[in-house]
């Protein structure tokens, strides 16, 4: 434990770790020192002068070096001037006075100065109601200004910093929290100050404006309404919103969120989600959220939501009762016996997936996970140990990221890994091309697409990198699906698991394997026993298929063809998709925001989400629909209480033993303190009152011998002349069904692209921005050429979920 220091603040004695700043120490003692520029997650700058206090330190005798005593007490010497509590670290015997007339006068003066040019348009300001400036003015302000109105400085009021964030320059108090967040935490210095003195203004330094996937966080920590989101703009006043705890469904990080809801006239009087806010979980997302999680929520309120069960009659889908629809599905599933296949995705909750798996088992069918990524069996075996916290990794630890662009695939992991690297952890990035994380890596390993397994196996040889990894106190490996399909990822996962085992980095907290999955609950699907299938088209053809929470027809023409030849297709989803169009039965499911459930994150943390808005139409939760079908097949599955389904799940799956909804809802005090009345301190992130979740214990942590199954990787494809090796890469803002309804993100989603090396582009005679046709394996699509000189000349990078069905590396023609 680090050295502890005892000091007195307003007569209250407190002991805190050495190095703590006075402002934070006061907070720990329950004393609020007003701050604007100080933020417990950022380096101190002392720019706003709001935190002025009197600080005294014990006096030392110069001759003897001893503390001077007075009446048996150390003599305290106060500085003649007020000092900033946010830049002064504590010291032994320090005395801090925050309530004296002198301190109050200083704070009052600062507020008066800050307000000289403030527009005071609180009535129309989105921050009004949860604004640190409002609160601190009420508490510490002078109530009257001595400045003349005519001398107010007027600056631009509606400045778009990119499509997502609005800036009001008059409201900015130049605390630089936004700039410092982008610099220090996100590692993307896209904001800066322009001009000097009273004219100092925030500007975006990037093109496109505010080019960062973390931009929304600056609106949370901006202590005024200078930065607001375009998504929520004038959506409601903060006090009119209801709050419900939830979990982000956009990626496997599992960020804790709060859904703010309100009844809305524009939505025809329905209660809708007005904004998504981060909810503090220092072990998952701290107090941050990426822009996809914050702004892509619109799909749950989309016009395309399915509201009623439908049955195909005379080639057309017609409304039907729940009874008739589930009966028809059940009859067909029963009749097909072994030819019954369930295809479900990681968009579903643990309870839904568990019921589906149980149905498949009881009915003698198969349950397949819709994913082109393998290795979930290995993360259950040698996944990160319970108690893992990326926020604790630092000096002496190592993190290896293989075949994944964390910035695009799991932004908050990028952010946390980057910060671990800042704290001194050895970050090793192994990827065929440069990713944003490379900038913070101690070592970057470049391999060619296809050589992933070799790149990992090379850690077995002696080198500076492998030594560093082997010797690390703690080591975590992230593996993803960049340039890889199902077989490739399984092989990489197994190589990574082997590496971890060989170097003794398994079975402990902060050690182990993490899959950068394509969907939020893929890990949960693996836990309950669903697995992906290499030849999905073959597995579906001629079968009675129950498709849940996925759109294979829209994604892949090959699967569309296979389903055309299916015996019977029942589709259960929240949205109308190309797959519901070919369905024999359509079953409307409730979105995650309309019901309760749990997800398992990539770090294998089981977390609860709660119902925030009323269900759409007659829709029902997925686990209920599955149990209704099961009932008609004379199979008993729990279908009334989601917590009971979870209890059954916990009883039948070892890793979940002892877990219950009550346990998942437990909370502990967290630091920094956020989201209470004192929003000026940590920002508008919500306090976590609904559960921090529980991390599953991987098999390796339980004990016993660990055997890693070997996966043989298929030979690397060698494209013929005139062909390129097209490889899939992952993109944050894609055209997936959970993103595209958010119109605000359209520009960031953009068009389907194909990235080529300048040489390859020259060979093909195309330039950047040209439209080309790319075709492989009976699939073809149009894409816009992007030039990337960090990749090799023989490959073409095609993003997943952008309209071109690419699952694994293929030889493709580009014209």
């Amino acid at each position: 434990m680090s050295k502890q220091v005892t000091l007195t603040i307003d007569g209250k004695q407190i002991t805190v770790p050495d190095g703590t700043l006075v402002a934070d120490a006061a907070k720990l003692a329950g004393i609020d020192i007003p701050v604007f520029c100080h933020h417990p997650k950022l380096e101190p700058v002392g720019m706003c002068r709001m935190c002025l206090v009197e600080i005294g330190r014990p006096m030392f005798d110069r001759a003897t070096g001893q503390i001077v005593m007075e009446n048996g007490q150390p003599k305290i010497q106060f500085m003649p001037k007020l000092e900033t509590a946010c830049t002064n670290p504590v010291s032994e015997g320090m005395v801090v006075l925050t309530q004296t007339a002198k301190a109050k006068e200083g704070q009052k003066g600062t507020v008066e100065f800050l307000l000289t040019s403030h527009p005071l348009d609180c009535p129309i300001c989105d921050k009004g109601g949860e604004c640190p400036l409002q609160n601190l003015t009420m508490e510490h302000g002078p109530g009257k200004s001595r400045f003349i109105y005519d001398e107010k400085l007027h600056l631009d009021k509606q400045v778009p910093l990119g499509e997502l964030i609005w800036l009001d320059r008059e409201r900015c108090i130049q605390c630089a929290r936004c700039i410092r967040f982008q610099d220090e935490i996100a590692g993307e210095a896209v904001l800066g100050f322009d001009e000097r003195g009273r004219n100092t203004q925030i500007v975006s330094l990037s093109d496109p404006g505010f080019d960062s996937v973390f931009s929304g966080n600056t609106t949370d920590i901006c202590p005024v309404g200078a930065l607001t989101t375009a998504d929520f703009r004038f959506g409601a006043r903060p006090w009119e919103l209801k709050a419900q705890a939830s979990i982000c469904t956009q990626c496997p990080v599992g960020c804790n969120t709060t859904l703010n809801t309100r009844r809305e006239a524009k939505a025809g009087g329905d209660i809708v989600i007005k904004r998504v806010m981060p909810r503090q979980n220092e072990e998952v997302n701290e107090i941050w959220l990426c822009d996809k999680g914050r702004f892509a929520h619109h799909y749950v309120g989309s016009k395309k939501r399915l509201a009623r069960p439908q049955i195909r009659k005379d080639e057309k889908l017609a409304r039907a009762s729940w009874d008739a629809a589930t009966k028809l599905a059940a009859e067909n599933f029963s009749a097909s016996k072994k030819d019954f296949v369930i295809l479900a995705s990681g968009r579903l909750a643990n309870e839904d997936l568990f019921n589906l798996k149980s149905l498949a088992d009881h009915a003698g069918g198969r349950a397949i996970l819709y994913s082109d990524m393998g290795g979930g069996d290995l993360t259950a075996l040698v996944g990160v140990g319970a108690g893992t916290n990326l926020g604790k990794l630092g000096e002496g630890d190592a993190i290896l990221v293989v075949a994944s662009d964390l910035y695009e695939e799991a932004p908050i992991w990028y952010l946390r890994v980057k910060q671990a690297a800042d704290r001194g952890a050895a970050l090793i990035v192994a990827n065929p091309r440069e990713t944003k994380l490379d900038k913070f890596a101690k070592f970057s390993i470049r391999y060619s697409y296809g050589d992933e397994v070799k790149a990992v196996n090379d850690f077995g040889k002696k080198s500076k990198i492998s030594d560093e990894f082997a010797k690390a106190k703690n080591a975590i490996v992230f593996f993803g699906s960049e340039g890889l399909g199902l077989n490739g990822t399984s092989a990489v996962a197994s190589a990574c698991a082997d590496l971890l085992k060989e170097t003794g980095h398994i079975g402990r907290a902060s050690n182990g394997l993490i899959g950068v999955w394509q969907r939020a609950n893929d890990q949960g699907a693996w836990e309950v026993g669903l697995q992906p299938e290499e030849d999905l088209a073959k597995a579906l053809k001629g079968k009675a298929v129950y498709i849940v929470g996925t759109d294979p027809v829209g994604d892949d023409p090959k699967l569309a063809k296979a389903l055309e030849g299916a015996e019977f297709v029942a589709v259960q989803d929240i949205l109308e998709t190309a797959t519901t169009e070919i369905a024999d039965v359509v079953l409307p499911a409730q979105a995650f925001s309309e019901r309760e459930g749990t997800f398992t994150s990539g770090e294998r943390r089981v977390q609860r989400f709660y119902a925030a808005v009323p269900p759409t139409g007659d829709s029902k939760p997925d686990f209920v629909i599955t149990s209704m079908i099961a009932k008609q097949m004379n199979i008993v599955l729990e279908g009334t209480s989601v917590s009971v389904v979870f209890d059954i799940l916990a009883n039948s799956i070892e890793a979940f033993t002892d877990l219950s909804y009550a346990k998942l809802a437990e909370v502990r005090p967290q630091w920094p303190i956020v989201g209470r009345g004192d929003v000026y301190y940590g920002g508008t992130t919500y306090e976590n009152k609904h559960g921090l979740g529980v991390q599953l214990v991987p098999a390796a942590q339980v004990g016993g011998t660990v055997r890693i199954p070997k996966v043989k990787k298929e030979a690397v494809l060698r494209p013929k002349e005139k062909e390129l090796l097209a490889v899939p890469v992952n993109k944050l803002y894609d055209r997936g069904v959970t993103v595209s309804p958010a119109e605000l993100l359209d520009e960031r989603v953009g068009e389907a692209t194909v990235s080529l090396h300048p040489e390859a582009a020259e060979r093909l005679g195309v330039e950047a921005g040209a439209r080309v046709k790319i075709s492989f394996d009976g699939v073809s699509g149009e894409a816009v050429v992007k030039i990337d000189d960090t990749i090799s000349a023989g490959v073409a990078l095609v993003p997943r979920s952008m309209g071109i069905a690419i699952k694994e590396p293929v030889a493709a023609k580009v014209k």
Partner: protein
Amino acid sequence: MSVLEPVVELVRGLGQTFRYLFDRPVTYQYPEQKREVRPRFRGRHVLKRYDNGLEKCIGCSLCAAACPADAIFVEASENTDEKRFSPGERYASTYEINMLRCIYCGFCEDACPTEAIVLGDNYELSFTDRRSAIYPKEMLLEPVPTVDMTTPRKVETGVYKRSVPEMKDPTD
């Protein structure tokens, strides 16, 4: 008790009655005849406009927050110079008052930063069902001064930048 006493009382009582018979009557023949209300009377609300016809209401919802009866519902949207309702960035796209809930306390008037919502002199409210007791913005807005001043309307760009009229220095 003398027998005369009740008779005296009766005559005195009737005397009062006869006196009023010749007094000026206080009764108003409502509804044919209406009584002038006091200047600070609080009746049915009106949403005011500026002289140029723009709506004073900026959709800030402060009236709704102040209302003890939770009678007001406000939903805001964004103004553009192409389609401007009120000065500044924000206007009320929905503004409703439930007249059955309202207790005519006038708190909304006090809370309004632009003096947009004002309790008027109309006390003759009647509804046949609960739904029609909810007055939408169209009913509450006062008529435009002249026909070309309707809202929304296209205005010169960059003129109406401020939602709350700028404060002036005290001149004394």
